[in-house]
């Protein structure tokens, strides 16, 4: 018998087994589907947060204000220092006049009031644009702290809170997702193995006869492993369909809500082909793991 014919035989045996006790298998597939859906959703939300963080990162800029009495020379020296500390960054020196003009533009009609102010109320400043690889809260805080410690600097501003919160959220989601994944994997392995325990019990006569007529252990076990893998694949199919539906409903609304942050590129899709493939692979792996546990524990051949 060719390997393909053998695989077909195992597949048909597994399908027959699933037809024999459809409700038990349906519960296992549903559990797997729900678990994988939760994982897929968590992955999607993490990617949304990544996208938000990236978008916000585009705005991350450190503004270093010089202390009174310091001028262009110190500003340029600071710009050089910032560039040395944060490779890949860009730095621009902003004279008080330009800062005032910008403020005037931002204030619109009220900007005219600034013309009456005496002297130059705004200090020299340096705007440092941080590249994506240097946008972690730790790196930003370290740079800001070093700059604040210089005698020529009166203050440093950046979107510290937003970056820290987003990073915290991303970390919490990843950690929570990993924990949920472990928990969900454990639960689904137990459910799949319990289902297959019942299948093994239901097919005990068939197994006995198989052994009697000379079936190898691998031949007896293979259909149960295929059954577990099939359950995983069906569960992944269910999860993919649910993710697709959720993506259709939720992604446009979320993108609309967060448009001011993410811009025209929008949010990543929940049902990206790569994610669905990962879910299928995870489903098959969990199904196989459950069937390995069941076959190892309950199938004495």
């Amino acid at each position, binding site marked *: 018998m060719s390997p393909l014919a053998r695989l077909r035989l195992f597949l048909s045996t597994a399908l027959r087994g699933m037809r024999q006790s459809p409700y038990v298998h349906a519960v296992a597939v549903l559990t797997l589907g729900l678990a994988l859906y939760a994982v897929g959703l968590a992955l999607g939300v993490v990617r949304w947060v990544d996208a938000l963080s990236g978008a916000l990162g585009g705005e991350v800029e450190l503004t270093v204000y010089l202390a009174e009495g310091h001028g262009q020379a110190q500003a340029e020296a600071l710009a050089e220092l910032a560039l040395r500390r944060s490779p890949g960054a860009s730095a621009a020196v902003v004279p008080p006049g330009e800062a005032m003009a910008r403020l005037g533009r931002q204030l619109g009609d009220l900007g005219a009031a600034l013309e009456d102010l005496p002297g130059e109320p705004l200090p020299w400043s340096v705007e440092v644009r941080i590249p994506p690889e240097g946008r972690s809260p730790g790196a930003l805080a370290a740079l800001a702290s070093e700059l604040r410690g210089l005698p020529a600097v009166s203050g440093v501003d950046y979107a510290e809170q937003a970056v820290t919160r987003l990073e915290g959220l991303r970390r919490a989601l990843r950690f929570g997702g990993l924990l949920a994944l472990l928990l969900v994997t454990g639960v689904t392995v137990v459910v799949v193995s319990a289902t297959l325990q019942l299948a093994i019990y239901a097919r005990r006569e068939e197994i006995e006869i198989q052994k009697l*007529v000379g079936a190898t252990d691998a031949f007896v076990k293979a259909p149960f492993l295929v059954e577990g893998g099939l359950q995983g694949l069906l569960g992944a199919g269910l999860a993919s369909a649910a993710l697709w539906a959720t993506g259709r409903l939720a992604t446009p609304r979320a993108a609309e809500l967060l448009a001011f942050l993410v811009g025209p590129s929008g949010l990543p899709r929940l049902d990206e082909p790569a994610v669905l493939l990962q879910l299928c692979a995870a489903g098959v792996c969990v199904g196989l793991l459950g069937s390995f546990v069941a076959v190892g524990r309950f199938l004495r051949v």
Partner: protein
Amino acid sequence: MIQMFHVEKTWPGEQPSLQDINLRVEKGEFVFLTGPSGAGKSTLLKLVFAAEMPTAGQVLVGGHNVGRMRASGIPYLRRNVGVVFQDFKLLPHRTVAENVAFTLEVLGTPRREVADKVQRMLQRVGLSHKANALPPQLSGGEQQRVVIARALVNEPTILLADEPTGNLDPALTLDIMDLLRDVNIRGTTVLVATHDHSLLERYRSRVIRLEKGRVVSDGTGPP
């Protein structure tokens, strides 16, 4: 074909089921194993198809030492030994043809050969007209014929039958015994465990009598 040297089988905490068994069954022989219930007939058959391992002694089947065989080798030994039980062990939800094909399926016989072999085997046991029936729709004798067909479809050199007529009425009993005789005439070595004395008188063959796990007589005709 089958040889046993000082074979003993004991389960923990129990009296020996078999003690100091020495016998030799030649290729093509028809042998009755007889004795009262609990004499060790079924245990002896189980040793031949490696369902049990001897506690002591040597069991040789087709030149292979069963006791020294690795677990992975046992399925290949069983492919050469057909087994028939009193309680049939048929799959109730599969048709007669599917039950017979089951053996070939396990052995990986190509599909196109399976149908042909099954049809020929059902013809041989006189059940080709019941190929699509389910086992519960058959009489006891017919079910036993299906079991024999399943045991023989891969042409094993040895056929073991453990009380094959135990559940059958006298007419069907003779029917099945004639079939086993026919199998033997075609060259298969047949070992039949039975406590039915009438069979030993009707079919004059070699009879090995067991009592309390020991061979008490070995000869032709009823002991």
